[in-house]
């Protein structure tokens, strides 16, 4: 299971990174959002994987590590705030500039 998990996280990360390297703001924002999913999985798994061990006292005998879960919760909320901001910033940028290209115009890269 651990192998499967880490491969999945890796693939998800790679896909997100690919999106982050795109030239338009929207895919980049989506890439960052997806990266945050991957990172949350990663951070969560630093407490190692446990099945049937929700850290709710009295329900189980063995508990999953609650600390990374709490960290991921914080990270999710912060990620939400950041996603919201960047999405709307992308809209604003498009509103101001007229395009959603992330690169500066009249630079060599914009055509690429």
């Amino acid at each position, binding site marked *: 299971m651990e192998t499967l998990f880490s491969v999945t996280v890796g693939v998800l990360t790679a896909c997100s990174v690919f999106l982050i390297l795109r030239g338009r703001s929207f895919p980049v924002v989506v890439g960052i959002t997806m990266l945050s999913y991957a990172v949350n999985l990663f951070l969560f798994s630093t407490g190692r994987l446990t099945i*049937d061990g*929700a850290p*709710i006292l009295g*329900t189980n005998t063995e508990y999953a590590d609650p600390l990374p879960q709490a960290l991921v919760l914080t990270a999710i909320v912060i990620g939400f705030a950041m996603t919201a901001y960047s999405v709307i910033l992308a809209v604003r940028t498009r509103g101001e500039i007229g395009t959603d290209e992330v690169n500066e115009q009249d630079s060599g890269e914009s055509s690429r």
Partner: protein
Amino acid sequence: MLTTVIHIAFVLFSLSIIMNFWRLAKGPHLPDRILALDTVYINSLALLLLLGIYQNTQTYFEAALLIAMFGFVSTIAAGKFLLRGDLIE
């Protein structure tokens, strides 16, 4: 026996999700995809319920309820997008 049945159900639901996903990927039209996505939500919800039965726990109830609620909201949002482009007007 019950264990076997639950395992079979797990497999059936999983296969359902795969088929939904296939439809989601294939389309061919946006309503198809949205419908498929909605179904993925519902089948996932079922998986969680099943997991609750399997582990004999109530822990997943809220998560399942939320999937039902939020699956609906997201489907409506997508549908509204197709109809009007703007969700909130």
